[in-house]
């Protein structure tokens, strides 16, 4: 063996042994000052978001270990809570970008500071290969890319090593923000291609277990079903240096155990706390609870307009007047929800979304509407909900059942297991009355309407169809918000949603995290995952 090879091997060996020696460090050094212990309920199942079958919790890996062309900024709410800012787009791999005059070409200059973990510079060819992959592998990533008008590889052009261009069929306000969501990651294409095979041209099997990126953290250990560990990438230069050196994410399936761990101080951060625990932890005062309403997300009661009697507008409105909104927010959401009822005017005065609907609990009015619909004596129906989300859906369904009983609507509850839910509610759309919780990653009202009110679209579980909505959404989707017609169109869309109520909003949910007082910099994100890069620990 040559001396140089020997030294190289030694380097690798010491690098790899950093973790195994963890137990020889004093507990304070290893467990506390620069290590963050995070507990989550659901484990990850892949390190590659583009792969088929990658579950939602796995997105957090992508967020932390890969870079994107651009990222969203962070803002501070009045109560001091940090939350991502959908209006502020910051450079990441792209140091700058320009939009062509006709708006149909976006050109990005790649930062010379962007380097993959193996030290090679990020090039436009890497970006192109990664984007080609995102639109070619199908499934959810392709759908998300499509939202930004990116559907085929020909749209992505590597002009030279440091210049990358996206050609669009039409100018769209959604393209740039869609580049900041977890999907369009930049992968080290040289490493990936070396592991691609004929059957697997996009190296899905390799990247599933071995990430190759440029992000602020590297993934050093993954014990499926137990834990994974991030280590800071000391060479990362695309943003402020992350505050913690090592992040250990442990899976703890039982909610009661998670709560005991955070209260005892054995975990630093508890991600995605259920509303009940969030409220009680906040009142307990031992730990900090940080949370913000999730942008563009609503918990709604869906009424399928193709099922009798909900095809009758008066019946839908009667239901909207008979819901116990206050009780739902206080006892089903434990106060961790922004009320979405009780607006004074029947038409919207602003383009804010979501905003309160002009309904409130008014049983007399509800009875009157039912009588007008010719159903004064009420009717029988079923209310379906997802057992996988029973923590808020079960109490909500019980409250609705009780309240509708008062106006003569006899409701039977139908619990559907999580695995069957999507088929029943979203694909077959066969549930007359059901609870639903869509949230759009891109924070525009027209984006919400595109998914939830357009006919045949996935989250339109109410089978709602309105020609005016179809036309308005198509017209507004790609329009700039500065366009004079934008506000008028949005107001009209919201007015239709107010009047027709195929989806009755109950409240806007919060995303809550509980953490020790020593943890700072936590921000709440639209993708509902932990971004460790801004976390610090004292």
């Amino acid at each position, binding site marked *: 063996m040559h001396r140089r090879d020997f030294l190289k091997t030694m380097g690798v060996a010491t690098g790899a042994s950093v973790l195994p020696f*963890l137990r020889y460090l004093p507990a304070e050094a290893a467990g506390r000052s620069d290590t963050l212990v995070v507990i989550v309920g659901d484990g990850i199942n892949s390190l590659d978001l583009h792969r088929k079958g990658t579950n939602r919790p796995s997105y957090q890996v992508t967020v932390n270990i890969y870079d994107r062309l651009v990222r969203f900024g962070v803002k501070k709410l009045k109560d001091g809570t940090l939350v991502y800012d959908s209006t502020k787009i910051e450079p990441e791999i792209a140091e700058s970008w320009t939009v062509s005059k006709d708006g149909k070409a976006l050109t990005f200059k790649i930062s010379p500071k962007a380097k993959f973990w193996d030290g090679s510079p990020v090039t436009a060819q890497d970006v192109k290969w990664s984007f080609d992959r995102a639109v070619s592998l199908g*499934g959810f990533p392709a759908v998300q890319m499509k939202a930004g008008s990116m559907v085929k590889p020909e749209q992505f052009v590597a002009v030279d090593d440091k210049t990358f261009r996206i050609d669009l069929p039409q100018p769209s306000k959604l393209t740039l923000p869609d580049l900041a969501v977890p999907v369009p990651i930049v992968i080290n294409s040289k490493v990936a291609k070396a592991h691609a095979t004929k059957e697997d041209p996009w190296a899905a099997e390799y990247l599933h277990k071995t990430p190759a990126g440029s992000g602020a953290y590297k993934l050093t250990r993954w014990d499926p079903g137990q834990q994974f560990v991030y280590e800071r990438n000391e060479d990362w230069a695309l943003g402020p240096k992350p505050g913690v050196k090592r992040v250990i994410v442990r899976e703890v399936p039982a909610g009661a155990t998670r709560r005991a761990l955070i209260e005892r101080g054995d975990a630093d951060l508890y991600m995605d706390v259920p509303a009940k625990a969030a409220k009680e932890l906040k009142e307990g005062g031992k730990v900090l609870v940080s949370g913000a309403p999730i942008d563009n997300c609503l918990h709604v009661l869906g009424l399928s307009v193709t099922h009798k009697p909900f095809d009758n507008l008066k019946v839908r409105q009667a239901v909207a007047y008979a819901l116990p909104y206050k009780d739902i927010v206080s006892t089903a959401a434990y106060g961790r929800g922004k009320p979405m009822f009780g607006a004074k005017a029947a038409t919207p005065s602003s383009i804010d979304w979501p905003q309160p609907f002009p309904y409130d609990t008014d049983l007399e009015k509800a009875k009157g509407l039912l009588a007008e619909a010719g159903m004064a004596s009420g009717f029988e129906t079923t209310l379906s909900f997802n057992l996988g989300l029973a923590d808020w859906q079960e109490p909500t369904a019980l409250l609705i059942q009780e309240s509708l009983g008062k106006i003569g609507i006899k409701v039977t509850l139908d619990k559907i297991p999580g695995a069957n839910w999507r088929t029943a509610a979203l694909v077959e759309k066969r549930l007359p009355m059901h609870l639903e919780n869509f949230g759009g990653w891109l924070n525009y009202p027209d984006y919400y309407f595109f998914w939830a009110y357009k006919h045949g679209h996935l989250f339109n579980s109410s089978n709602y169809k309105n020609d005016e909505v179809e036309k308005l959404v198509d017209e507004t989707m790609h329009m700039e918000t500065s366009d004079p017609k934008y506000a008028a169109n949005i107001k009209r869309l919201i007015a239709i949603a107010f009047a027709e109520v195929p989806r009755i909003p109950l409240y806007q949910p919060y995303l809550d995290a509980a953490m020790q007082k020593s943890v700072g910099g936590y921000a709440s994100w639209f993708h509902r995952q932990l971004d460790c890069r801004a976390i610090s620990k004292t």
Partner: protein
Amino acid sequence: MRTKLYQIGQRLLQAVPPVLGVIVISFVLTRALPGDPAVYFAGIAADKESIEQVRKALGLDRSWIEQFFIYAGNLLEGDMGISLNTGRPVLEELMTRLPASLELTFTGLGLAILVAVPLGVLAATRPGSWVDHLCRVLVTAGVSLPTFFTGLFLIYVFYYLVGWAPSPLGRLDILFISPPHVTGFYTVDSLLAGDWETLGAALAQLALPAITLGLFALAPIARMTRAAMLGALASEYVRTARANGLSRVTVLGTYAFRNAALPVLTTLGMVFSFLLGANVLVEKVFSWPGIGSFAIEALVASDYAAVQGFVLSMALLFVVVNLVIDLMLTLIDPRVGVEV
């Protein structure tokens, strides 16, 4: 010895039809479950087209018969398929998780035997005494307390309030790294590696979940021991032994207990089987990365390969456990033959 080996071979051959049956039934049952894995795994915002893509990629667009023969063919090559839920081969998943579950089950069962058998024997020799009452209380508590409750209660008292137990975070505390893999049992592996520190940590993590399981397993064993001992003590051979002036120890140990051990052993086999099932809740509460929580998650996600793999491995395990129990019975009592 030759006849014994022949008998074992016979028993193993007899296990073939049930295992084949399990393969077919688990295949059909998973398919008959409501829920569509293609929809589930296509992701949060997948449309019809991408769902069809996923269906095709998973091979679910083929007929059941075709799918079954592909599955059976792969099984013959030792390939149990890939778990969609965890993204890893089912075999690998079972190999890492089964030792975790077995370690927990064996420890729980061991604790239960250590307490239940002496307790049952004492209760039988002194019916109506305080030991008998204690036995009755423990048996009632063990039967009536659900495992997840016992688990949460133990965590609350010994971890949350008193702080004696380590954090309920699976098989090892965050600061420890698993010992080099030999058997997959952390206690055994750390002993083999001579790593006392890790052994201590693994035992500490094991204590609460094992006690939880042990409390649950204690009831049937203690009851069975007591009943069998009572039967044996009332028998004519014990009366004869006593009348012949044999010592108390010989009467109890050799004559009574040896005969009472037969039903107790049979019960142990059954208890072991249902402990593996009862594991699920304990594993959830203590974040134990075992086979039970894996199966539940697979079931929720309609992860066919994983569910089938789990059912199959359980079937094989039961075959082995029953065989071992039967062999032990022949050792204790030569009257029991292995032949059926």
